[in-house]
């Protein structure tokens, strides 16, 4: 049997490795498309607050894929003496940074838009020369917003299935963010159209709506990543519901012939799920120390085989166990909405 290694690198199963490469390609595609969309928006900004906010929101959605690209360079690295747990949490770190930034910028934009609304600032939108024609800049704005909207929808549609397969919260959040972009761009289009019809408030009202969307997005993600950093039990993708995986591992451990009782304490490390499995050997099993160690090693291997995400599980034999944990105060079964 291979010796237990203190620092084992997390490996994606063969069939999912192509998905990992897909994330890299999708992230690059996102960055390129979002930069093109942001450039288009930038050239048609004018003095519209809605455009400014939509532009910032567009630039912001380009940051998570960049952060993910950076984090993914680290994620599958071999553990080192300094980081014996490996680098799987690099994605959580990237996530925390982008989500907090998102919330803060959203708050600033909301303040900015509401001030303009309260001060009754009328947005001036002049003309632009396109291919020798003089055109109201508002129409060019609607055009670039529409392009940006399509980019978001397409990226979201491409990312969602990959996130599902890899159980990647970061990619899932990105897909959601890309898909939610249509609301921002749609709101900005409505805002510009309102301005076209002479309703000046349409611009800053749309901007305020977009800012709220940015804040909501950021807050949702901050909350999720805080859960990760607090060693929350594994949760379902894109939801707050707890996963069944810890129970599945516990039940499998209880089914082992030499185990009388078992309990788990699992947490998520990026794509991986790791933690401890406590087992109480049957008193009648009559195992000596060597047999017990062999049995525990075998159990580790067997339990890790239950799900590709399980990695670095530690099986700890104990003499007695209180295996149930009460749900959090105010929750019935951890399945709080």
């Amino acid at each position: 049997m291979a010796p237990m290694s203190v620092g084992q690198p997390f490996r994606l199963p063969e069939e999912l490795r192509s998905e990992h490469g897909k994330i890299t390609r999708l992230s690059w595609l996102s960055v390129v498309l979002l930069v093109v969309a942001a450039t288009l928006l930038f050239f048609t900004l004018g003095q519209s607050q809605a455009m400014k906010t939509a532009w910032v929101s567009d630039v912001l959605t380009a940051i998570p894929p960049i952060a993910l690209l950076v984090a993914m360079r680290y994620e599958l690295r071999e553990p080192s003496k300094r980081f014996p747990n490996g680098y799987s949490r690099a994605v959580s770190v990237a996530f925390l940074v982008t989500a907090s930034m998102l919330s803060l910028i959203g708050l600033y934009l909301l303040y900015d838009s509401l001030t303009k609304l309260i001060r009754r600032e009328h947005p001036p939108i002049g003309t632009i020369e396109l291919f020798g024609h003089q055109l109201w800049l508002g129409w060019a704005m609607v055009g670039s917003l529409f392009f940006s909207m399509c980019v978001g929808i397409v990226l979201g549609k491409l990312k969602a299935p990959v996130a599902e397969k890899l159980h990647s919260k970061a990619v899932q959040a990105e897909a959601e963010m890309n898909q939610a972009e249509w609301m921002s761009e749609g709101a900005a289009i409505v805002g510009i159209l309102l301005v076209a019809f002479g309703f000046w408030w349409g611009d800053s009202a749309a901007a305020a709506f977009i800012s709220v969307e940015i804040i909501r997005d950021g807050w949702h993600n901050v909350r999720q990543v805080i859960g990760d950093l607090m060693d929350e039990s594994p949760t379902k993708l894109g939801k707050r519901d707890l996963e069944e995986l810890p129970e599945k591992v516990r039940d499998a451990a209880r089914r082992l012939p030499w185990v009388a009782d078992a309990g788990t304490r699992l947490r998520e490390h990026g794509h991986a799920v790791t933690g401890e499995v406590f087992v109480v050997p049957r008193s009648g099993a009559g195992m000596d120390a060597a047999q017990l160690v062999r049995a525990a090693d075998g159990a580790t291997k067997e339990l890790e085989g239950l799900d590709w995400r399980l990695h670095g599980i530690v099986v700890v034999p104990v003499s007695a166990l209180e295996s149930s944990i009460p749900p959090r105060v105010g929750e019935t079964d951890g399945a709080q909405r």
Partner: protein
Amino acid sequence: MSSTHRLTLLLAVLATAACNLPRDPDGTLDRVRGGTMRVGMVVDTPWVTDSAEGAGGIERTIVNDLARELGAKVEWHKGTAEHLLEALHDRDLDLVIGGFTASSPWKQQVALTKPYYTDTTMVRGKRKEEPHAVAVAPGENAWQVRVEQLLRGKKNEFPAMRHAWPR
């Protein structure tokens, strides 16, 4: 998919409506047409010069052409940039001329048109490009579009006018 169709339909309807858009929240263009155009002037030779009746100078011709094309009579207000632009921001004036450039510190408070002429000056031995614009009431977009259309049409007249003045 049906939402996409609805969107296409909406865009088609909008495209036909686009001819009369954008509109002014305060109806400046409609009011000026056949009525009175309230123009603020800040003296800045050669762009705006002082004269017996209203302004003179290069930007006077812009006001003249606008008034003629819209059948409006001009009501002149002479003053400092600060006062006039504040009045423009509050839409108590329709247009302010005063040799403003695109980098004017007032550009966020009022609506500067697209530059109509780029002047080259020497500042401390360095060539400096100064794109000149006029200021219109902010958010009166039909009005701004109308003024910018006129400026674009007059584009070729400005260099000669500028050269008529000594540097």
